[in-house]
């Protein structure tokens, strides 16, 4: 861009057309109409513009004779004192009229190709200085004006030069989320369709699901250890479905000593019945009892053999019951304590009558205990519950709903009694 982009040094500005303060009501007024077209010659004292205030319609006149340059088009809302147009010595360039008062920051990001400058077109430059853009395009001469038909509709001359990602008009993205979106080069409109407010956690969830989907498609997925390395473990929000975070805690032995029961049954087809019977005897009866009498050092290993997925530094008391039938549905994060007498259940199987009449259907839902959470003595965690990061379930509680991160719950049913300050 040349030095002529600086408006102060631009020669040839004969007069400025500004919005006067007329009433005490208005800080912003509306450009009701222009009586001359962009680039047209106007005379001194000629009424060129009507400004609508809350009180009346004001006629604004040009103070000099010259070529009219329209800065704010018909319908635009402009603050008091703002420049709406100018009278120039020579015809102005293609009009880059701002129609929408909310638009300045995203009005134009790329110079028109007609400008002749190649650099900006190749590497989009974010610029909120409309005036500078316009002045630069103005330097190309008058033919652009003729070509675009001038007038208030001149903005069409820059269509097609918008940024590839169109401006977000229906979403607000938090700063944290924006950082992640930029990092991963996501298109928020596609990725978070139907979501008005996009938070960091939404982006993380999207990334996790994308990773999970890619790994399913991929013929040779990376080993769980590699996965853990590449995908950082992220604390999720309370309502996160357990299935989406399971992978985060999966370790090499998470499928149990003899593999995952459900997956095995699927692989083995009809033969699975015998295998399932063995599995039941081995996992649920033998190992299920072993964890009660085994030395503390062995308990965790036995739970892992049973199929419980868990991270590092976990403590499980021998008297705790960590699911009786479907231990593979339990995911435990790092540094979790499950104390004496706790019962963590992932299934509910009511008596025949209740099940068959449909009064109490069979429930089988995963349970997730996120990092650093603490399950107090004699507490019960019911199927489908996620206990959030660094949360406390006090003794004797029955947890039926998800526990948000950094929260203390108590009672039957467990209710929030305290929230801890979250580290920034």
């Amino acid at each position, binding site marked *: 861009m040349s030095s002529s982009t600086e408006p102060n040094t631009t020669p040839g500005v004969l007069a400025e057309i500004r919005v006067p303060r007329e009433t005490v009501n208005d800080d912003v007024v509306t450009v009701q109409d222009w009586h001359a077209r962009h680039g047209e010659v106007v005379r001194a004292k000629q009424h060129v513009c009507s400004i609508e205030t809350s009180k009346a319609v004001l006629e604004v006149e040009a103070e000099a004779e010259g070529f009219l340059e329209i800065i704010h088009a018909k319908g635009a809302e402009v603050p008091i004192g703002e420049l709406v147009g100018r009278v120039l010595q020579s015809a102005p360039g293609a009009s880059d009229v701002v129609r929408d008062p909310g638009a300045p920051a995203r009005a134009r990001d790329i110079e028109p190709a007609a400008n002749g400058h190649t650099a900006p077109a190749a590497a989009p430059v974010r610029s909120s200085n409309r005036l500078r853009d316009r002045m630069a395009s103005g330097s190309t001469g008058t033919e652009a004006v003729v070509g675009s038909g001038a007038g208030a509709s001149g903005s069409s001359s820059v269509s097609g030069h918008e940024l590839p990602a169109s401006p977000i008009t229906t979403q607000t993205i938090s700063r944290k989320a924006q950082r992640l979106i930029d990092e991963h080069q996501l298109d928020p409109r596609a990725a978070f369709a139907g979501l008005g*407010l996009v*938070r960091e956690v939404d982006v993380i969830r999207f990334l996790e699901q994308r990773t999970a989907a890619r790994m399913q498609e991929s013929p040779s997925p990376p080993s769980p250890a590699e996965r853990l390395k590449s995908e950082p473990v992220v604390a999720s929000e309370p309502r996160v479905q357990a299935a989406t975070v399971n992978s985060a805690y999966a370790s090499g032995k998470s499928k149990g000593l003899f593999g995952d029961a459900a997956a095995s049954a699927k692989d083995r087809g009809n033969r699975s019945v015998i295998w399932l019977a063995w599995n039941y005897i081995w996992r649920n009866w033998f190992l299920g009892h072993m964890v009660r009498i085994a030395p503390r050092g062995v308990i965790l290993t036995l739970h892992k053999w049973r199929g419980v997925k868990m991270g590092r530094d976990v403590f499980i008391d021998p008297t705790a019951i960590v699911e009786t039938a479907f231990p593979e549905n339990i995911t435990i994060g790092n540094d979790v304590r499950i104390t004496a007498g706790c019962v963590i259940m992932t299934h509910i199987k009511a008596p025949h009558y209740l099940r068959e009449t449909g009064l109490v259907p069979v429930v089988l839902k995963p349970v997730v205990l996120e990092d650093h959470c603490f399950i107090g003595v004699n507490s019960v965690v019911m199927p489908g519950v996620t206990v959030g990061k660094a949360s406390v379930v006090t003794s004797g509680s029955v947890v039926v709903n998800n526990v948000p991160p950094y929260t203390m719950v108590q009672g039957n049913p467990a209710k929030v009694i305290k929230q801890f300050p979250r580290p920034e």
Partner: protein
Amino acid sequence: MSDLLDQYAGDLRAALTIRFVEQRLLKLFSEGKLFGTVHTCIGQEFVGVSVARCLNDADTLFSNHRGHGHFLAYRRNIVGLIGEIMGKSVGVCAGRGGSQHVQQDGFYSNGIQGGIVPVTAGMALAHKMQKTGGIGVVYVGDGTLGEGALYESMNIISKWDLPVLLVNENNLFAQSTSQQQTLAGDINARAEAFGIRSWHSNTWEWSKLFENMQACIEEIRRTGRPAWHRVDTFRLMAHSKGDDNRPEDYVQPYRDKDPINVLLKQHEHDPRWQTLIREIEQEIEQAVQQAESAPWGAVDDAIARNTHRARGYRWMRKSFEKEKGVASVRKGLEQGMADHENLVVIGEDIESPYGGAFKCTMGLSARWPERVRNTPISEGAIAGIGNGLAMRGMLPVVEIMFGDFMTLCMDQWINHAAKFKFMFNDKVRIPVILRTPMGGKRGYAATHSQSIEKHFLGLPDTQVLCLHHRYAPAMMYADLFRTIELPTLVIENKILYGQNVHAEPPAGFDLLFTDELFPTARLKPELGAHGQADVTVLSVGGMSLDVEEAAVRLFQDEEIVCDVFMPTRLYPFDVGVLEQSLTETRKLLVVEEGQGFAGFGAEVIAQAAERFGHLGIAARRVSATPNPIPAARPLEQHCLPGASAVVNKAMEIVREFVH
């Protein structure tokens, strides 16, 4: 003298009835059968009689605390009066009004000195506009000569040529205080100063009083001009009960020359008079018996109606044109004037070309010159005129130039507008609208920037609406004009006048409205299935602009999700509208521009604590700092809450949230 009875049969009967009823009431009081007190007019009977004998059904009367005589002279409803004072269902207002608040047909009374004068002026204006031929009569004692509302009204009554008769009962005492201590200057000179023709009579020469009063009322009817009629008289009994400190030898001469005492003495042995007296006494005795045997006025639905009933809220979308707040208000008024022929707009400086201090009434007076009127600077009087207009079938819209001046309308609002419907047993409607701009941030300083809506909240039988930028004033006014039953105060924040009202929510939020007549708008965050809001924010009036900005900032910078509510009606207000959101967030932030102490936010939080205490709600308020509003921009910015204050408080409640 026996021809007196032929000439004035009805009038003398009325006067005697008044005397005997008052005496009977004093007896009932002594017997402990009256609840409260009575103000008797013994000695002043002929004033009411002299007026009532010249009135017809189109006329309206407004009486004061000492109104029994005025009422009985107008309508000989003894059961209705005694029943009312005893609090029985046969009373004219079924026991709701009592001694000082009696209403039947064109008769009204209120125990507020002075305030009844502008109401009468409003009624007279209604008579004039509706061409009923009626006049307005108002009774003011000499004590009321100390009230400013009287003079504000006299000025308007004279300037606007209203057919009003001001009857000044000059009995020399205001309660216990002698006129010598309180009255300066001449009584009738006051009226003359306003260009009102004044008359002077007394009750001792009662036949002369009748003549003068008749001439006076006929002149009002003929010219349409008001008149002031001073009637010298004397109250023989106490102001109320047992509070008479006047020496006996001062009162005795008046007792001796009292016209009724004189007449009774003269006709002691006249059989016609004795028959008449017996008849009246029988009539009164029957009335007392009837009243005594009647049941008490019932505590019915009307009294119980304001108790809370839980209701569900349905949320819906609405669309309206994006335009400046002031344009929408103007459009609403304009449409209202076109749709409702009885709509009248009055206020200071509202006529074109000026069109109001904030230009809300621009152009209205050009189209409807008869129905849009500039008033003098008399806020109390014009609010009262609004009340009077509303009670006589008009739909008045009174513009009070600045909300701060509403203090001058307090009496009219609290003691008149809010009371008439109930204390007159729902026999009157008072659809009056007061519009006023409140709020600061324009550098108008301490007396032109306040948000004092809290002083007008919680008055039964009124409603308080407030504008915000998410609901079009034009829609609100259209609904209001269509459905108004109660006195309604509309608070229009000044900042909103110059801002756009529009239905296009900020990105990421959905704009919903309740299915109420005056809906609460809600900016509901669109979080998808996994998210929930962090804090419920209730924004009062013009704070909607700042709250909305804060909600966007809070989300972008802090990921704090606000569920924003903007009520259009502040009173009555039901916190149930927040139920769904509070269940989710359990955090409530109320944002108001006025003082927080005992403000709207306090009410909302109290209601929330009562209704949703089991949820363990945490609550915070954003309001102005406790000092008058300074003028300088930075000082004002410090004192009045803006978007940053909302952001800070929201962060505080979310971070420190402890159940």
